[in-house]
């Protein structure tokens, strides 16, 4: 067995660009999935019953599907259904956003639902308007419960971006496997890929632990 680790150094620019793409995918997906998640959660909580049923069906469907299947499905079905020639990046982003929006919607719904109704009523009895009560009483408590969950969704999302490699989005997993195929340095490239994910993911996982301790709710 002889290993040639110089292959990693020789492709460092490509790996760095691919790492940037992974981070970009994570940030862009979250930027879409947080507002959309709030909208879907609001629809599930307050909308007209048929709309509520549609929102519920959407959330349950995407929470119960493997993401890799959603990625393939988006790749083949979205161009036909919409008539648009989407780039792999846009397709991957759409699949990730559809998936994460469903999880976020559930997070927001649970966060708001976890604040007992009596608190809102008590605030209104003290003379606050409904908007004031929601802003000053319900939201500050809900945010404490939502934030740690969003943080762990973030880490899951960061890892799940690797799945869009199957439709040739040039993020870290895809690029590393391409270089592996070109150079035949299988062990070196795959280990480098794992190491980059580890270096980025480990601090995030630790940060999530810290956020969860910091915002722990004791009742």
């Amino acid at each position, binding site marked *: *067995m002889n290993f040639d680790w110089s292959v990693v150094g020789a492709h460092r620019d490509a790996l760095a660009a691919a790492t940037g793409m992974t981070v970009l995918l994570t940030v862009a997906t979250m930027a879409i999935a947080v507002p959309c998640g709030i909208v879907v959660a609001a629809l599930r909580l307050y909308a007209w019953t048929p709309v509520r049923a549609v929102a519920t069906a959407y959330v349950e469907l995407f929470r119960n599907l*493997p993401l*890799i299947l959603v990625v*393939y499905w988006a790749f083949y*079905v979205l161009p*036909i259904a919409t008539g648009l020639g989407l780039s792999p990046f846009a397709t991957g982003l759409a699949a990730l956003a559809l998936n994460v929006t469903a999880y976020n919607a559930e997070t927001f719904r649970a966060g708001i639902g976890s604040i007992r109704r009596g608190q809102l009523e008590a605030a209104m009895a003290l003379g606050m308007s409904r908007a004031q009560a929601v802003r000053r009483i319900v939201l500050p408590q809900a945010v404490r419960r939502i934030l740690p969950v969003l943080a762990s969704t973030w880490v899951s999302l960061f890892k*799940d971006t690797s799945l869009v490699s199957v439709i040739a989005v040039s993020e870290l997993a895809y690029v590393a496997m391409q270089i592996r195929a070109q150079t035949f340095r299988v*062990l070196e490239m795959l280990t480098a890929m794992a190491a980059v994910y580890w270096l980025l993911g480990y601090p995030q996982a630790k940060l999530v632990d810290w956020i969860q301790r910091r915002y722990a709710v004791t009742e």
Partner: protein
Amino acid sequence: MNFDPSVIIEHWRFLSYGIGVTIALAAASGAASLALGFVVALARLFGPRWLRPAVVLYIDSMRAVPVLVVLIWTFFALPILTGLTMSPFVAALIGLTVHLAAYAAEIFRAGIESVRPGQTRASLALGMSRSQILRRIVLPQALVRMLPAFGSLLSITIKDTAIASVIAVPELMRQSETLAGQSFQPIEVYSFAMLVYFLILFPVTRGVDRIYQRVAHLGRS
């Protein structure tokens, strides 16, 4: 857009084989990761002091690295290192187990730690041994409390088996890819796969919730 489901009926045996492999892989890796996760949690909580940092590093590393990376590394890189070749199924089983056991270990740890230390002290005062306390006092309460978390872990396990398609395990995702490529009917095939995964996963998550509601009172203290 025309939708022709006959491709599913024609290749029913091919697809149902994939469903069988998906279920077998999920069951095997689920059971193996439970067993490994329990050992890891015990090592983290009660193991020798020198072992604990290594256990924590293992758990946190698995939380930091995508399961796709673990699977690909196990299948392509591990044989180079060890000289042993493995079938895709065995590689997927090893990769998924090593990945999911870290999550299972965290669930066991959180469950065991959720039982108040006063109960352990009281049992010690009554003359029970450490293993007796774990077996008779702590685990019966902790296992009930862990149930919802294990329900989500089971659902994650089933979803993660689909990622084994990238190392050519002939489970439902892989069979669907192959059939979609050969029949040029990706919409029908992938929509069918979505339906099957949903029909497997939805009852699993709902069923665990149901069971938990039944037994939740047993975990209170």
